[in-house]
């Protein structure tokens, strides 16, 4: 794209979340795209307004006020494109994450082939896969009919058979759907998305079309060795949007406002996470987490083999699956730096219910922030355990979500992440401070320059490079773990012995680079294998290089007083910079 065009475009990006709706304004400043301002309003998709667009309007008004730019005309309509006097915007994009998850049933022939591909079709969308049917299902026909009918899906993905391949299993699933149609009243019948053997497509339309809304898409498994997800995914997202828009007033208007450049936040987040991974750890393993109020989006793995999941877990309505689980509540209590909160002595367990039923409230006291961060730690531990696996070795960690992005100080966000994810090895940590990863992912579709230039600016500068050694068995507190040297390009260096239990911060400002050399003690793994040294060039960040000598997995003390003291000590340790830089 010619530079002159880049410089003239002003972009508005809207994010309709469960708790908040945000409006982001991107414009060029001295030839570089920058985030100008962010407007915000409590979301209005739910009660009492039941109109997602109202909060969008209020967020844009807030944005107008903060940016000083006129975006709305006298009638309150968005000015598109920009006027000769520089009012308005040139393009609008949007993301959404405020609806209820859709119930999906997957039908395929083999679990590891068509069913796995069908699962990838729905990956990252806000769905709950409520039942799966395969050719190897041992249940009787009656049991299968009952299971299907009682799953009350919104969408059924009917996959199976390579093109001109297996027919029998797919036909059996068509029969199953015809039985179910006799039990479901018309108004309860789901959409059918057929993504299987194309030789059967016409028959599927003919047999099922009389009973269901049927959409046909190319086979997700045209041959055993071939997978073709994209067209099926596009068809699936189209149905998804129709169903969500029907259930969430205002979303269809947003679709019009953005001229269709409107996607699920999770998908935009995934796209940006992949972009950042290419930037920070092209050959490594990454983990990206967006911790929302109702959903958590997770992306993990290498660039070639990254997996993405959106879980119905979060720090609001997303606590519903957890608030009744005693083990989860015990875990929150075991990590909290206090037993009670507030003048009435609300217990930590009570706070979990409070947050679930009052998801949009903000803590007004320090202790409230501590407890929200504790909740985030515990939820992150569950997210990591159910996706990438506990204490993962990751080269790049991207985090988004209110509790991390809007943390009162960056040290707090880092501690929440380190305790929640417990990464091993050497990890570059980036926090999406403006919570705009999702919208940038969508914006990338219409203008990559914005994304490249905004990602290179302050809102996406790395938070820290963290070295997290791990070892087997116990290691006495204070025992040496590794010798760490950070050599700066101008000849100075800082060298430290990292002791077990310590958190140390070494200076390395954003934009600078230094050579990190780590010589671990026997049996200690710093990312290169037990006892193996590590040499790596590391980039500067807000908090520099952080050495986490607490080991993996790390658990806080059982005694609440000790826990509180340690909570403070850790925060203090990350505020302190090592001063022993030698020439």
């Amino acid at each position: 794209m010619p530079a002159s065009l880049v410089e003239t475009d002003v972009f508005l990006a809207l994010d309709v979340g469960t708790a908040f709706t945000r409006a982001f304004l991107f414009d060029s400043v001295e030839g570089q795209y920058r985030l100008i301002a962010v407007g915000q309003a409590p979301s209005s998709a739910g009660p009492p307004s039941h109109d997602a667009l109202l909060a969008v309007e209020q967020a844009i008004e807030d944005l107008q006020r903060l940016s000083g730019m006129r975006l709305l005309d006298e009638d309150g309509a968005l000015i598109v494109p920009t006027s000769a006097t520089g009012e308005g915007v040139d393009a609008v994009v949007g993301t959404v994450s405020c609806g209820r998850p859709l119930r999906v049933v997957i039908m395929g022939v083999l679990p590891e082939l068509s069913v796995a591909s069908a699962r990838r079709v729905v990956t990252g969308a806000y769905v709950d896969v409520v039942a799966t049917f395969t050719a190897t299902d041992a249940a009787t026909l009656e049991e299968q009919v009952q299971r299907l009918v009682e799953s009350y899906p919104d969408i059924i993905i009917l996959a199976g058979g390579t093109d001109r391949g297996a027919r029998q299993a797919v036909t059996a699933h068509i029969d199953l759907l015809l039985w179910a149609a006799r039990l479901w009243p018309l108004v309860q019948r789901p959409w059918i998305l057929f993504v299987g053997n194309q030789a059967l497509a016409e028959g599927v339309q003919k047999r099922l079309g009389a009973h269901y809304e049927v959409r046909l898409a190319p086979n997700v498994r045209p041959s055993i060795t071939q997978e073709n997800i994209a067209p099926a995914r596009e068809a699936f997202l189209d149905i998804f949007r129709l169903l969500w828009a029907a259930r969430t007033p205002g979303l269809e208007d947003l679709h019009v406002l953005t001229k269709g450049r409107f996607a699920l936040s999770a998908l935009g987040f995934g796209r940006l996470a992949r972009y950042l991974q290419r930037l920070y750890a092209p050959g490594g393993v990454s983990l990206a987490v967006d911790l929302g109020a109702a959903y958590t989006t997770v992306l993990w793995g290498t660039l070639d083999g990254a997996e993405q999941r959106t879980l119905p877990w979060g720090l609001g309505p997303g606590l519903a699956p957890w608030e009744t689980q005693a083990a989860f509540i015990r875990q929150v209590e075991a990590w909290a730096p206090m037993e009670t909160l507030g003048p009435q002595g609300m217990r930590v367990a009570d706070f979990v219910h409070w947050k679930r039923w009052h998801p949009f409230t903000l803590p007004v006291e320090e202790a409230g922030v501590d407890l929200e961060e504790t909740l985030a730690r515990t939820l992150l531990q569950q997210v990591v355990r159910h996706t990438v696996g506990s204490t993962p070795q990751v080269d790049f960690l991207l985090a988004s979500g209110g509790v991390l992005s809007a943390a009162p100080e960056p040290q707090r966000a880092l501690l929440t992440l380190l305790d929640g994810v417990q990464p091993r090895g050497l990890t570059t940590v980036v926090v999406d401070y403006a919570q705009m990863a999702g919208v940038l992912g969508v914006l990338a579709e219409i203008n990559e320059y914005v994304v490249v230039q905004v990602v290179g600016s302050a809102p996406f500068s790395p938070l820290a490079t963290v070295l997290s050694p791990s070892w087997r068995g116990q290691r006495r507190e204070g025992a040496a773990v590794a010798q760490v040297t950070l050599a700066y390009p101008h000849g100075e260096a800082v060298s430290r012995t990292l002791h077990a239990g310590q958190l140390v911060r070494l200076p390395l400002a954003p934009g600078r680079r230094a050579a990190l050399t780590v010589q671990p003690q026997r049996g200690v793994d710093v990312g290169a294998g037990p006892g193996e040294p590590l040499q790596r060039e590391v980039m500067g960040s807000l908090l520099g290089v952080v050495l986490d000598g607490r080991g993996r997995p790390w658990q806080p003390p059982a005694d609440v007083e000790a826990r509180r003291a340690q909570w403070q000590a850790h925060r203090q340790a990350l505020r302190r910079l090592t001063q022993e830089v030698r020439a």
Partner: protein
Amino acid sequence: MTQGTQELTPGPARPVCHIMPLARVERERRLPRPGQVRVAEGREVTFAEVIAATPKRHRVLILDLARALGLSPKQVRQAIKVRARDRVEKGDILAEWRRGLVRRRVTAPQRGRVMGVDARGRLLLRVGIEWDEVRAGLNGLVARVLEPWGAVIRAEGSYIEGVWGNGQVAAGLLRPLTARRNSPVDEDDLGLEHRGVVGVAGYCVNPKVLARAEELSFRGLIVGGLSHACLEAAREASFPVLVTDGFGPTPMSEEAFRLLTSAEGRSAVVLAEPWDQVHGARPCVMLDLPHISQAEMVRPGEPLLPGQNVRVLDPFHPGQTGALLSSTPRWERLPNGLKAQVVDVRLRNGQRVTVPIVNIEILR
């Protein structure tokens, strides 16, 4: 408008929690999925009446008629003696085929309903069905039918909304269990004189209270706050448990406590359904009044206005209400370092507090 701040155009309505001595309520009662509505507009209903239902579970049998009769699927069509939607009793003939002296029959193994026969000559017989039902929840009349979801029930009386309910609905006579809104209820507070009542208490942190209430055949329990330790017992209680304000040792708001305790001996319907944060329906208590005039219509949301009665949603101000001093939010950094849009509130105890706008709920 507060001096020195910029007036914003009115934003989306803020949620309202209703605590009203005289209210006219229109309450949507919806099934989880579309189904059959069983009431007509204008009909009077009582709180326990089922107004709509939808199948939850089906038990089915698939009978292979072709195989049983030794016929081709085409021949089965001529042998079938029932039609789709027919009800059949155990032993009724479903299909019959005669060739010469030989007569073959397939009879219904159980009572049920024929749901259809497929192209392969298999018959689907539904032999059992469980329903998801929605009850009226309030004593009133059907204002509108929401085909195929349920209906809107209109009711009048004193009305109090809460934040949590255990899913039960019942009615009984109100009886205070604690003298103060910020007092916990203890098992010893529940005596034989409380048999079959709807108890009202400041808050409950002792699970034994729920066991004792069960022994006394309570018709309902209304508390300001309920602790985690009590939640499991509350979920399993056979009577409705409704929380008006929050969790843990959260006192009941002054407005709710005053209204409930001043109505001692009056009949109350406790609709302790969980708070539906998608559609907005909250658990509620409705007190029947002998005669109502000038009842005010309940509205789900309103814009913020100075002087409005509000509740502060925050563990540090549990059960606290007050007057909104300004409706104009401003960005401010809170003492804990968070940045938020805030407003000022004069609490009932005279204290002036600055709270994030998202921590405000209008009280009517």
